[in-house]
């Protein structure tokens, strides 16, 4: 298993763990202190866990791009990993904060999060598209 896939899978498992902890908190007595956290919880499951798991396994298992670059442009894979996790972490921190106390910093952090997450999807598609080959 390539190093990048191990990072993707371990990060995915951590997000699943965090999401399940958040799930407990959201139905407990502390839920009133974390208003606005539900979208972040939901995206930890769908983006941090499921999508990241797919990204990691696809990078590992998809057909080789070429003999020299079997997994395509590996730097794009690393960019995907960094963009996804930075973008999602920004969302997890600043989306609930923005719901409680809107501020210019929180607003721009959400925009940065949106751009980073979109770029992570774009770089994944770019690197994976060329590896989808009929045999």
């Amino acid at each position, binding site marked *: 298993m390539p190093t990048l896939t191990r990072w993707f899978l371990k990060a995915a498992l951590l997000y699943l763990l965090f999401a399940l902890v958040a799930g407990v908190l959201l139905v407990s007595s502390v839920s009133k202190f974390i208003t606005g956290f539900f979208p972040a919880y939901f995206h930890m499951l769908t983006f941090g866990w499921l999508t990241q798991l797919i990204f990691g396994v696809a990078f590992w298992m998809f057909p080789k791009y070429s003999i020299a670059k079997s997994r395509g442009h590996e730097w794009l894979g690393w960019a995907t990993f960094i963009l996804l996790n930075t973008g999602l972490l920004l969302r997890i921190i600043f989306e609930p904060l923005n719901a409680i106390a809107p501020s210019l910093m929180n607003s721009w952090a959400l925009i940065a999060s*949106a751009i980073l997450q979109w770029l992570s999807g774009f770089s994944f598609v770019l690197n994976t598209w060329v590896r989808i080959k009929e045999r």
Partner: protein
Amino acid sequence: MPRLSVYFVRASLIHALLGFTVGGLLLANKGVMFSPTLWSLLPLHIEFAFIGWMAQFAMGVAFWILQRFSRGSPRGNEKLVWAAFALLNTGILLVVIQSLFGVNGFALSGRIMELLGLAAFAAGNWRRIKPLEDKPRS
């Protein structure tokens, strides 16, 4: 990777990009509100992300890696799975058209097509979910 998986996975990547784009716009709009009506695109984000991206990607990869048959067509009834691909993507398109343009009845027809697509996929691959076949001893 068989041709049908190539179609499924490429279509799923297009849906992923569409889903990420709509999702990104929704999140950015939470930061700095540039369109009060943008929130109405949430059903599109969900449709692209869950059905178009995740479900379709899983179907494409499953068709590729599930067990093959040693006799007859190795991946079973491929016509059913081609039908699944067509039904699923036409269904998503119809749901999107209703969400964007408010054409009544399209979402219902689209969801029924998605359901039939999944049924066709399951019917086409059900028998491929089986234990490994024993290789004949020489």
